[in-house]
């Protein structure tokens, strides 16, 4: 206690440690940006920064919904195959029933899947890892059954307002970026500024205590899965509209990249902590690492090696600061 009372120098070891622990990921982000900016002239150009955020927007949009799930103390591994399903659905229906109806049907379908997740995990209290693992497989099968294993595409690509979501610009900024950042701001406001947001934190932090304080945690868990399904639907809009076609497995592996972004931001897998801002930073770090390494001339897959190290180091920093020692004591 005495330590905290004593006036400490702003750059004392204790303060630096605290800063590193609370803002470590932000500092890492800045270090990465400076490093890449020094190594490549083009890295910090407006064009390049915009294109990185644009590419990261699909993973980023999904990660916003998944952050709610993870803060609530659960996992969602089904978002990758849900993205495949939603993209195939919206692209395939576009020519059959028109864009408006296609989008509405797609959102109804993903929300239905999300509510199955939410029912099994929220109301039946089944383990989220296994349930969403099972759903990953089931939805992948469903996608293949729907499409008959064929790729789908939109015939008249130049002549549909559906192109707006993936290819459009508003005020000179690409629409995917606006959707990503707009959803992020909205989600952060909900999470930090509303009773709903506080309840999400409390069911993830201490589920039993939350139940005793009158929070209907079954409904809460259910709602977080609706949110991750909704943002996955938004990502499918961007992806389908950008490509104007879709393969059956287009979202394969996305669940883990999304989770990597969420974890990198410092949202704990145990639930109860984290934020949308952190997730956005986590997703952007992954995007900038990819882009920076490419600009520096490394092979494409080198980014995955760096991602490996960055994920573990970021979480280690977080765990170590909470534990008070760098290594475990056993």
């Amino acid at each position: 206690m005495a330590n905290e009372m004593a006036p400490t120098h702003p750059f004392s070891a204790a303060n630096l440690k605290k800063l590193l622990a609370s803002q470590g990921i932000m500092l890492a982000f800045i270090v990465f940006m400076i490093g890449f900016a020094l190594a490549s002239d083009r890295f910090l150009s407006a064009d390049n920064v915009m294109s990185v955020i644009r590419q990261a927007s699909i993973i980023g949009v999904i990660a916003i919904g998944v952050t709610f799930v993870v803060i609530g103390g659960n996992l969602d591994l089904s978002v990758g195959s849900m993205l495949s399903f939603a993209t195939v659905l919206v692209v395939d229906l576009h020519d059959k029933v028109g864009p408006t109806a296609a989008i509405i049907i797609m959102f109804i379908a993903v929300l239905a899947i999300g509510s199955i997740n939410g029912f099994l995990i929220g109301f039946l209290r089944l383990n989220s890892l296994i349930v969403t693992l099972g759903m990953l497989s089931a939805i992948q099968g469903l996608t293949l059954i729907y499409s008959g294993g064929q790729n789908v595409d939109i015939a008249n690509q130049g002549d549909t307002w559906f192109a707006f979501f993936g290819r459009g610009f508003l005020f000179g900024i690409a629409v995917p970026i606006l959707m990503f950042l707009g959803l992020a701001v909205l989600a952060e406001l909900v999470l930090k500024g509303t009773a709903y947001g506080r309840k999400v934190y409390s069911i993830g932090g201490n589920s039993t205590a939350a139940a005793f304080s009158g929070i209907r945690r079954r409904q809460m868990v259910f709602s977080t899965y609706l949110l991750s399904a909704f943002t996955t639907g938004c990502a499918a809009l961007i992806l389908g509209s950008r490509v104007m076609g879709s393969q059956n497995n287009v979202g394969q592996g996305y669940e883990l990249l999304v989770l990597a972004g969420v974890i990198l931001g410092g949202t704990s897998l145990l639930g109860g902590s984290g934020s949308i801002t952190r997730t956005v930073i986590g997703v952007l770090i992954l995007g900038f690492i990819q882009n920076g390494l490419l600009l520096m001339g490394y092979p494409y897959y080198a980014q995955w090696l760096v991602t490996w190290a960055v994920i573990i180091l970021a979480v280690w920093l977080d765990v170590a600061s909470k534990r008070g020692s760098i290594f475990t004591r056993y």
Partner: protein
Amino acid sequence: MIKRILLAQPIWLFVLACLLIFSLSADHFFDLRNFANILIQTSTIGLIALGMTFVMINGNIDLSVGAVLALAASLAVGLQDALGIPLAVLVALGAGVALGALNGVIVWKTGVDAFIVTLGAMIGVRGLVFVYTGEQSFYASNFAYSDFGASSIGPIPTLAFIFLAATLIMHFILRNTIHGRNTYAVGGNREAALNAGIRVGPHMVINFMIVGFLAALAGITMSTQMGASTPNMGRDFELWTITAVVLGGTRLTGGAGSIIGTLGGVLAIGILRNGMNLLQVPSFYVLVIMGTILITVLFIDKQLSRNSTEELNV
């Protein structure tokens, strides 16, 4: 005795039911050659699942097995022209063990959750595979390599034999050795295990090395079947493996599970795939059915264990 096993291992009931149903409905199902086929088809997932059982009983998880499989296969096929087959296979197995050790030491020393550590490794090791192979498939120029994959020991295909032998060995280690017993203890209650003087960290590292070894072995056997390796081999295998292990009754929280159960889980997946294939059900439906079964088993397990762990119901 049989009744006790069936009650303790409900997945074997499911396996028997599948055997019965497919024997009655599919023409060429009840056939020794088909059973040998099923064993070969399941051996890849099966080998990894044996190791995954240890890691999960231990309270951890390994998501990097699919990538390790691809790396081992690429090394074994890619290096055999330069080093000869035996040395290339040794290097591949060594890589699997080394990556397992790396995962284990990181989990032990940093205290970062195994899910995160191996999620990172899954991405990173896949990157290693692509960097090493230059995104190319490798083909085994020496036919002895692919002949091995097609060979038999007596009536039993060699690959099936390797899987069954590994199953017996792993069962023995889990049931009859100090390491096996401590694996349960650490997964059941890590604090208590520490207080009892069990060296928690080294046991975890050994288990990650075991699953690394078996994933590498699975990569080698798979590449002998194909006579080649591709950089995308083993995609999603971590998911299938975990599915098999959980079907076999191993708890995600650790401390409970068995090799016999895992064998049941692996066979359940294999028989289902094979039988539905013979019935000409499109493979798409198998994915849906597998997912549904996994969730159903989880639900039944929850109902059965509800009495023992009564929790607050709000």
